[in-house]
């Protein structure tokens, strides 16, 4: 074999290997997706949405408590996390500019974005659950808020910086005060990007389990009182899947399916919003 042939041969071997690894990797991922869809659709019934948890073995339980709880937890987390994140991101992009402290806040939020979520759960346990003396929905929402905040902050920061400074200058030249420039010009220019960031942050906290395990805890029945433990789809899924009862496991798959579809839908919606913006 000549040197050239050898090089071509090596190249082809590597191409085959990396294509194969791609096929194997993607195969695994579609296996998981397939399992999720088959088990999820199988377990999905209308009564799931209208019934609360029942003792195992009765076979008639539903997920209403977990669905409502999940929505409450994510809703309240967003109520805090979104405005705080957007305002903090506004400071970074519009006020701090290239200052050291601004860079530091960016770095810290980058780190917080990747910090283990279970540690956030432990922190919230210490500052909310322990003083209150019991688990509560609020504790869960606060944990999710802490996870959401840096994500919203960083995307807002990035998106606001994409707004051309000429737009700001034009508004300033018309005599608009800075807050008006930000609220009416900069935010409008970055609307799609910020919205996508918020959607992705909601999707991210919607799938969080670890920080809820010992903050909002769980409840097998519908509870709308945020001062008490609140069920979530993720923790319910964990508890049901690890239980030895077949009907509970089935409900666990239904919860997994509903949650994943919800999260995928939000992700796709976020992408579409950005895409539409780019096409314009």
């Amino acid at each position, binding site marked *: 074999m000549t040197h050239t042939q050898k090089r071509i041969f090596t190249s082809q071997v590597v191409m085959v290997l990396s294509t194969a690894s791609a096929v194997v990797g993607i195969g695994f991922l579609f296996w998981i997706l397939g399992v999720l869809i088959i088990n999820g659709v199988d377990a999905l019934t209308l009564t799931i949405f209208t019934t609360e948890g029942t003792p195992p073995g009765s076979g008639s339980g539903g997920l209403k408590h977990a669905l409502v709880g999940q929505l409450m937890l994510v809703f309240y987390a967003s109520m805090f996390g979104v405005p705080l994140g957007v305002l903090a991101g506004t*400071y970074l992009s519009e006020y701090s500019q290239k200052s050291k402290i601004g860079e530091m806040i960016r770095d810290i939020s980058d780190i917080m974005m990747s910090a283990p979520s279970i540690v956030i759960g432990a922190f919230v346990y210490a500052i909310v659950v322990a003083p209150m003396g019991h688990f509560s929905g609020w504790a869960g929402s606060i944990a999710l808020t802490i996870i959401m905040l840096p994500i919203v902050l960083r995307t807002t920061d990035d998106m606001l910086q994409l707004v051309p400074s000429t737009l700001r200058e034009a508004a300033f030249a018309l005599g608009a005060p800075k807050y008006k420039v930000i609220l009416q010009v900069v935010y409008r220019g970055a609307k799609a990007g910020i919205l996508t960031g918020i959607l992705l942050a909601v999707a991210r906290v919607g799938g969080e389990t670890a920080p809820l395990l010992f903050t909002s805890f769980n409840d097998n029945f519908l509870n709308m009182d945020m001062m008490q433990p609140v069920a979530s789809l993720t923790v319910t899924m964990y508890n049901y899947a690890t239980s030895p009862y077949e009907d509970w496991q089935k409900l666990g798959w239904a919860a997994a399916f509903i949650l994943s579809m919800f999260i995928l839908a939000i992700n796709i919606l976020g992408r579409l919003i950005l895409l539409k913006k780019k096409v314009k």
Partner: protein
Amino acid sequence: MKNIIDTIFANATRAIAFGVLLLLAWIFTVLFEHSLESLQAFGFDFILEDKWAPNLEKFGALPAIYGSVVSTFLAMVLAVPVAMGIAIFLSEIAHAKLKTPVGISIELLAAIPSVIYGMWGLFYFVPIIRDVFGGVGISMLTAGIVLSIMILPFMAAVTRDAMNTTPDILKESAYALGATKWDVIKDVVIPYAKSGIIGSFILALGRAIGETMAVTFVMGNVHKISTNLTEPATSIPVALANEFAEADSDLYYSSLFELALILLVVSFVIISIAKFYFLRRKRVGQ
């Protein structure tokens, strides 16, 4: 009047942004304060002691640390080559028509909550491990594999992004000189994107080490150091997830808080290395 609103708005945003800094400091402080009792009781021995016996009020973190290190190492060993393969496939091999759908589905899979991976692992992977290697199937090995599959999409997506930063003109020049695809990948793309690729791997490592739900289902939470990978084990996040809600003494709580503190410090260091050494942020705009 205008000025007042302006000042209020500016200061409100500033206060919240600074709040994020304080928040991280607060998290560290609270975890440290709650670890004090355990720190005083065990001192440095905490991380060297291999006995975790709540009923005897004896807590050693070594098995959990060992489990975290081994499971993460296994996950990385398995995921790195496959992620590399997917990234090469997506950035250099795949036809444009295949590139976008496959790339997007990988990104979407990275968004699937880790609890789903854990559940899949419990119902579909544990039996396979049980049949192939014997034992109960709930083991360090299972955890490592499930963890590797969970971080795979994230790792592949960021590695591909790093590789995609290579300017086409560099690759084209190499091809014009008669380079094969592999020559281009190993001598142009990888050297160019090296720090980005390594940074992505370290970032994935940071995620894997703090990942809870993907491994909690399949690891067993047994505080025992065993060189046999097919035996149940535990890791820091697994111990926290299993024991936090049921700890019944102050020292027990304090030891769990110390575990959380160790985990936070370790991932803080890993993520910092990835972010500041390998992935210096490129500023957008302006």
